[in-house]
């Protein structure tokens, strides 16, 4: 089995998919972080021009916000949980002042998270599709499926080895995305920012934002959290792509079908968000990271747990169907 998995990993590597993905990633990440840095500097210039100051006084602004928060939390009339959230913001701002960190500076830690948050619904699934789409279909289009299936290895093992190889490569890809976004954006921003605190853990309770359970965690923990969600979503997308790749005969149609599903899913969610069924479609559930920011609820009744459950059902279903189809299929190429 290990030998089979090694073969499959070798095939993916020799097909030079990874360099292609790296190039795409570098171009995007480079452009985005350059653009963000450029926009940030322009904003500061503009601010300075308007206020007539020679240096952007973030300490002043932050202290101002701090005073305001402290004043409001003195107010007896406000409920306890709101005060708690004020306290956490005060704590956060104090950290910035004490450590002399400008809270609005773009940092590598912020960039890799926002890249993951933005990419999780489309860009990262696209990269996964490049990896996974020809996993099975290329064996059929190159007709090499015949030499794979006429060896003394049962068919389910052949497919399982492909699936495991795909999981390995997907995991590797998520690491690569995390590392590339961090390193490239650091080149532009010159700030890591991994120890800065961030407020997270909002929950939605009866339609209002509940900050009871919010906590202050360092950025690196938040990054790890976001990337675990990205990894989970990538595994799901990889499993679904495997099924598509098995049903169609060319990798072009496999990528096409997956893209159509992803984009069509966004449309569905946009236009038909009050239609109950939409929330059971996997694409609607891909945006896991946005649940962490609080008020997100794409369709009534959706939550992080709900989405994780739906995605798992889709992935397990896809894998089950893949194995059944692959085992029964007559190879006529």
């Amino acid at each position, binding site marked *: 089995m290990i030998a089979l998995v090694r073969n499959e990993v070798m095939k993916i590597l*020799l097909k030079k998919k990874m360099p292609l993905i790296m190039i795409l990633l570098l171009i995007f990440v480079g452009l985005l972080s350059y653009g963000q840095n450029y926009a940030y500097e322009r904003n500061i210039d503009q601010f300075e021009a308007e206020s007539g100051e020679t240096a952007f006084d973030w300490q002043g602004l932050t202290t101002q916000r701090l005073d305001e928060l402290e004043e409001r939390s003195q107010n007896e009339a406000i409920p306890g949980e709101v005060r708690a959230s004020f306290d956490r913001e005060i704590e956060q701002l104090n950290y910035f002042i004490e450590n002399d960190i400008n809270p609005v500076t773009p940092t590598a830690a912020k960039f890799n998270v926002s890249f993951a948050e933005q990419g999780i619904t489309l860009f990262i699934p696209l990269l996964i599709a490049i990896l996974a789409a020809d996993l099975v279909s290329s064996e059929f289009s*190159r007709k090499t499926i015949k030499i794979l*299936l006429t*060896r*003394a290895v049962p068919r389910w093992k052949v497919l399982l080895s492909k699936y495991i190889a795909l999981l390995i490569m997907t995991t590797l890809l998520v690491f690569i995305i995390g590392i590339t976004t961090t390193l490239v954006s650091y080149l532009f921003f010159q700030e890591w920012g991994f120890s800065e605190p961030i407020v997270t853990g909002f929950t939605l309770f009866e339609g209002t934002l509940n900050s009871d359970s919010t906590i202050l965690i360092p950025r690196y923990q938040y990054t790890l959290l976001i990337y675990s969600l990205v990894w989970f979503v990538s595994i799901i997308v990889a499993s679904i792509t495997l099924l598509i790749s098995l049903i169609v005969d060319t990798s072009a149609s496999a990528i096409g079908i997956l893209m159509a599903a992803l984009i069509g899913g966004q449309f569905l969610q946009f236009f038909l968000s009050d239609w109950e069924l939409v929330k059971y479609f996997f694409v609607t559930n891909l945006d896991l990271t946005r649940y962490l920011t609080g008020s997100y609820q794409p369709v009534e009744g959706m939550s992080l747990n709900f989405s994780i459950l739906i995605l798992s059902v889709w992935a397990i279903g896809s894998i089950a169907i893949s194995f059944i189809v692959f085992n029964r299929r007559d190879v*006529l190429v």
Partner: protein
Amino acid sequence: MDTSVLKVSHLKKLIQKKLIIEDVSFDIQAGEIVGFLGPNGSGKTTTLRMIVGLSTPTSGDVEICGYSLKKEFVKAMSNVGCIIEGPDLYDYMSGYRNLELLASMSKDVTKKDIDEAVALVGMENRIHDKVAVYSMGMKQRIGLAQALIHKPRLLILDEPTNGLDPQGIHEFREIVKNLAREKNISVLISSHLISEVQLMCDRVSIINNGRIIRSASIDDALVTGEVVWTLDDPQKAQLLLKSTFKVEAAIAGHTLRATVDPERLSEINNTLIASGFDITYVEHKKRTLEDLFLSLTDKHTI
């Protein structure tokens, strides 16, 4: 004990409600080379696909070295090497990588086995080049090596000489014959090149419209039963044949031509000699395999 290396019994295959294979049965003994002939669309490749497990028979079973393909796929397939409408190779790898990859899918295939297979098909010099730059003939050689690395007892070759030059075909034939003779490997070859089959095979099975219509050793298949005598007095001999053996013979110059059961031939010859005829030559007319093939698969429409 049944010694068949391959035993195909009552295979039937429906594809999209069309009966492609009606009823195909045959078997192959150890060391035997069997030719599998049939016009396009006769079900040749479909049968071979079912034998190697690429497609599942609607009914019937295939046994390889006593293992049922249905029930003991892995054991059965570990005895088979095949090229089905191939050769199929990963063209982004070197020939050697291709072999390594398949070697790792079988138990106990060593580097030495790979090297031996490479040497056998004469590809030592180019084995580390990418498959993408190989000629068709080189790919065929690698394909054969692929089929041989795990030392199978049964070799199934579908159109193995496609794209080979005459010298390549000759070498290929010698390799296959040697494998059968020295290593006792059984071979099932399908080919359009009938002369090829005639030169290589011990037996031949002809399939048409999903049925085996003739299965016999090459020698038996080619016997027409027509005998030609060259002798001093054909007219007299003609009368003798007619009166004694009730055989109608035709005269052409100094020769006499008749259709005779091969078993009676020596009796007839003895009688002719005893009657004082001077026989210079007796020839047992054989037809070519091509004639047989065409006569059996006549009036064929796809």
